[in-house]
């Protein structure tokens, strides 16, 4: 194996006005496992993407064996032996396991005909590495679409391995693997280390980090704040490094009396493909946060409560059991959902503000539509939200991100929801609009609306919510309120640690 040491120095990356990475440093040597940790938005995936050639940095430099290199594409990085196992799977569903593993570097014989049998044979050898850890026996000719998420992840790992990497990036590669598969992967990593491979391991599971890592690099707010051998840091010290010293200031007064208010929503052992036995209670006028690292099932929980994905378990509204099969069912029970991807799921971008605001409510305006009444109602909502606009006929795609997000919220307010489900509503929204948004939320709760609020911004959760439920791997691992609602507890729970 080619022994390669990789060093990233002072990497910088901006997206528009947002600084994703301010000073990213990472160093990894042959035969070592380096882990990269950081809270949400600390820049660890940006750092990983720069080093593997997916995005180009705005500043800083990359050294391979002390020679400066520039990657324009993921392929350029791969040619030099730097291969990533991506979190978003890079597999083509309709193609077979073998076709996917060799995609982009097929073995050819004269005349351009592929050496199908040899590739199949090598695929079998690769699959044998995980033999016995999968539910089904994996065959090179199986289509990707027939595999479970864990099996897909295994194929993704084997695909990276087929490039014979010198530096291997595992970005949350264990997230969809079960414990048997993780154990096998860790055994393999030990082998690869002995062969001189350099491995960068990004994970949100603290236990795994302590099992596999030799050294750890900590990112905070886009800066590398520490790089040290793992055995020199306790879990608590690691968590303290990941969060900032300052204590979050609360933007909402605490509502201690809330805990005795009427129970609006009760969820018992709710499970989906990602969620496992979720229990929660939401009271009138309460604002409950959903925290944790991204993609731990928060979005699925909101979708299940909106009837948009199938679930098992029991949901009670006002003490009565209900079944939510479709979003219409949820809407009839006055549940509203504000999606995270506002441009695809929340808005019709080329339509007017008026059309967007009234889309879920048209049926209350008769046939033919009482357009003047509709306009008046929309106007009332728009001014209540302090929407910055020329008039109601302005198309959505001319609005700023923050204003567009207000429209997504506004279209549900017209229906006077009792329960509001928010999926990371302030993502990519400027500070001024954020505080207006917080004001709207407090007004809503004062009117008795209960809010379930998922945010990737920890400060926001700490500042806004009465309670925060922390999700990890599809389970609620902690319920934080009162004195325990502080950043260190939140991060510790998000990392799946009990400290």
């Amino acid at each position, binding site marked *: 194996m080619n022994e390669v040491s990789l060093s990233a120095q002072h990497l910088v990356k901006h997206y528009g006005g947002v600084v994703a990475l301010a000073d990213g440093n990472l160093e990894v040597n042959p035969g070592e496992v380096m882990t990269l940790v950081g809270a949400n938005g600390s820049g660890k995936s940006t750092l990983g993407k720069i080093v593997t050639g*997916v995005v180009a940095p705005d500043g800083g430099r990359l050294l391979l064996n002390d020679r400066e290199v520039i990657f324009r*594409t*993921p*392929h350029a990085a*791969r040619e030099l032996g730097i291969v990533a196992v*991506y979190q978003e*799977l*890079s*597999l*083509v*569903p*309709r*193609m077979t396991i073998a*076709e*996917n593993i*060799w*995609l*982009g*570097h*097929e073995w*050819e014989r004269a005349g*351009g*005909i*592929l050496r*199908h049998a040899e590739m199949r044979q090598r695929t079998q050898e690769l699959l044998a590495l995980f033999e016995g850890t999968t539910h089904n026996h994996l065959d090179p000719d199986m289509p990707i679409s027939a595999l479970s998420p864990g099996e897909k992840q295994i194929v993704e790992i084997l*695909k990276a391995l087929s490039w014979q990497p010198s530096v291997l990036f595992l970005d949350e590669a264990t997230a969809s693997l079960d414990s048997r598969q993780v154990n096998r992967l860790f055994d393999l990593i030990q082998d690869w280390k002995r062969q001189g491979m350099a491995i960068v391991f990004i994970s949100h599971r603290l236990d795994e980090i302590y099992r596999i890592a030799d050294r750890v690099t900590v990112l905070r707010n886009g800066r590398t704040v520490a790089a040290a051998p793992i055995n020199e840091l306790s879990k608590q010290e690691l968590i303290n490094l990941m969060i900032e010293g300052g204590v979050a200031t609360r933007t909402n007064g605490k509502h201690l009396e809330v805990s005795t208010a009427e129970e609006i929503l009760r969820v018992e052992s709710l499970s989906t493909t990602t969620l496992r036995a979720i229990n929660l209670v939401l009271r009138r006028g309460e604002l409950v946060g959903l925290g944790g690292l991204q993609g731990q099932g928060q979005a699925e929980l909101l979708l299940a409560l909106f009837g948009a994905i199938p679930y098992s378990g029991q949901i009670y509204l006002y003490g009565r059991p209900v079944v939510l099969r479709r979003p219409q069912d949820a809407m009839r029970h006055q549940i509203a959902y504000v999606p995270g991807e506002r441009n695809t799921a929340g808005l019709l971008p080329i339509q007017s503000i008026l059309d967007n605001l009234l889309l879920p409510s048209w049926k209350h305006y008769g046939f033919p539509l009482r357009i003047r009444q509709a306009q008046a109602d929309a106007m009332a909502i728009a001014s209540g939200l302090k929407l910055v606009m020329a008039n109601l006929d302005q198309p959505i795609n001319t609005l700023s991100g923050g204003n567009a997000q207000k429209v997504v919220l506004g279209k549900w307010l017209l229906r006077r929801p009792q329960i509001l489900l928010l999926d990371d509503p302030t993502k990519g929204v400027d500070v001024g609009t954020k505080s207006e948004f917080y004001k709207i939320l407090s007004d809503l709760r004062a009117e008795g609306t209960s809010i379930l609020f998922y945010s990737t911004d920890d400060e926001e959760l700490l500042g806004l919510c009465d309670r925060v439920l922390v999700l990890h791997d599809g389970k609620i691992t902690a319920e934080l309120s009162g004195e325990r609602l502080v950043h260190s507890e939140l991060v510790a729970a998000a990392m799946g640690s009990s400290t």
Partner: protein
Amino acid sequence: MKAALNSGLLRRLGRQYFLFSLLLLIIGVVVNASLQANFFKPIALVGLLRTYLPLVLLAAGQTIVIIGGGIDLSVGSIVSMVNVILVTRMGAEATQSQVLTAVALGLLAGTLAGALNGACIAFLRFQPLVTTFATSSIFAGIAVWVLPRPGGSVPEFFMQPYRSAPLGITFPLWVILGVALVWWYLRSTRFGRYLYATGGDAYAAYMSAVPVEWIRFFSYVASGLMAALSGLLLTMSIGTGSALIGLDMTMPSIVSVVLGGTALSGGGGGVIGTILGVFILAIIRNIISFANVPSWWQTLVNGLAVMLILAGPGIWALIRGRREA
């Protein structure tokens, strides 16, 4: 032993994307044979093959584009363009070398037309549907400019091969065999894999170092070349020129692809299915004409056949799911 072999073969066939097309074709043939007494006579079959051979080539090119995640609405106009170029360049008294020059020119024109489509779609990121709709008007315009009024003729020796039967097998079958062989070769190369990957998930393909833009480009070039070959065969078949001749071939080419089990969403299917698809279409038209029903039935039956093919795998899964439940 024999049973095991049979069931293995059957299972392999059962996995093929064109299973439903094959079933539909068999049903069509049975119905047709019951209506048309001489259906299995060589003269009827050869006639059918000669009529639909140009569409086989056109639909094969269309299949490549559709597998790659695009669509080509300009193929019919390319056929017209190549047809009028061939006829105007030849005339009845053309020498062998004049014919060869004309053929080379026609194939070049078709390939360039495909390259124009491909460049706009792959590199300039234009929408395939809109782009090829627009270029189809351009190519049709060129055809009218080259030959404003239908007519012209070609030398006898140019048309002769189309009616020949080397080694006792009729010419269209040789061409179809050739198309199938070229397709098999393409599928066995890197290009084949990249084509399916690009149409299946362009982002995943890009992340796997597949040159997505070039694959898209070449899929349209291939379609242009196949359309030119289709125009060549059509000219050999009818021996005259018209700027409108390919106009009614675009939609049948797309319908044949769908009838052959290739999804319009891209990333699946293949040319073998499309060849079956063309003959399903041919049989439907044949049945209509022999059943003595008004010709508007043809459109209706075409539509029903397409819906049946689209619903087929779903119905199959439903039956299978119920059996397991």
